[in-house]
């Protein structure tokens, strides 16, 4: 390496203040499964010695075939840090290696190898404050749901100081993950949920019917002067477009955090 970085394998022995526990693979047990949409399923896991997590973090999941072939993927945690168990919501990608197993084969009582929680960039704690802007595309809602649930767990006085707006783009109404829960959360005066449906032909839909664009962000995001924090998660094109538009609208790039979801299966 020509750079100034030295990688010391023994660094864990020194345990500086910020050192984290070694990331170990653990066998979680599936407690329950719940279908959220025709293509997305939530797996509620009991993970032994789970150290707790922060909203926005993910776990790595590893599947090992009998011949030793391994597949590894990352899935965002949907549950709040306050919840007792760890919930993942997985979107099924056809012809892929991992998600069809997680969405179709895995049953309560089955084991699943996971390691985590992972991540320190795309995370939010209510102590960091708001106002908070969450922008999701498709299954990109999952880590943002952990943030919304974390917000909902806070004391009313704390929650009242942190307003949240969610702008969520889905193809059709039936593809909207956590729809009923989002409706319940939006009853709070501090939480606004806005959906846009990009491919829904239903004539009853009165809301947005297009991809997220500049005019929609101007309407639905906080004014740039409000020092809001933005978390944008979804497919790469959506994330890059929304992050660019927010910066163009005057938002501080350091307060716009992104996570790209690819259909890695």
């Amino acid at each position: 390496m020509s750079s100034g970085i030295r990688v010391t394998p023994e660094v864990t022995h020194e345990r500086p203040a910020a050192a984290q526990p070694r990331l170990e693979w653990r066998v979680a047990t599936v407690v329950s499964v719940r279908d959220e949409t025709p293509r997305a399923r939530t797996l509620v896991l009991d993970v032994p010695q789970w150290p707790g997590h922060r909203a926005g973090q993910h776990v790595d999941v590893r599947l090992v075939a009998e011949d030793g072939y391994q597949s590894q993927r990352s899935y965002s945690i949907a549950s709040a840090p306050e919840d007792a168990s760890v919930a993942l919501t997985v979107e099924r990608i056809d012809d892929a290696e991992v998600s069809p197993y997680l969405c179709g084969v895995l049953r309560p009582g089955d084991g699943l190898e996971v390691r985590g929680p992972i991540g320190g960039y795309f995370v939010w704690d209510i102590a960091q404050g708001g106002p908070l802007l969450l922008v999701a595309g498709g299954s990109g809602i999952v880590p943002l749901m952990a943030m919304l649930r974390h917000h909902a767990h806070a004391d009313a006085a704390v929650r009242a100081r942190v307003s949240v707006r969610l702008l969520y783009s889905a193809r059709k109404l039936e593809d909207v993950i956590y729809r009923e829960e989002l409706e319940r959360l939006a009853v709070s005066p501090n939480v606004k949920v806005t959906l846009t449906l990009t491919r829904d032909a239903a004539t009853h839909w009165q809301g947005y019917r297009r991809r997220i664009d500049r005019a929609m962000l101007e309407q639905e995001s906080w004014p740039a002067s409000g020092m809001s924090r933005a978390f944008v998660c979804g497919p790469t094109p959506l994330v890059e477009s929304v992050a660019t538009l927010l910066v163009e609208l005057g938002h501080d790039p350091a307060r716009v955090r992104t996570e790209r979801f690819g259909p890695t299966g």
Partner: protein
Amino acid sequence: MQTEEMRLDGNAAGGVLREVFARDVTAALATCTGCGAVGPVGALLEYGHGMGMILRCPGCDTAMLRVVRRTGWLHVDASGISLLMIPESTSIS
């Protein structure tokens, strides 16, 4: 498989990076040797995943960090990063 080629970002690489650095570096700030841009590791573009991956600069596409696993060894090439600033606290501002 086409989907294996899909681009993710440094957030998804957080697990492999924990193996290398023994702490979270997704919130660390990396300086690109190609264009000098400074940004969080979590916002770098990731190609490949799990067994081997490359993190590229979102601005100029320089390969900033490569990690490949080969029979008992982790190969780490960080030659695309001229400076990595790792926050000492896990909390972020």
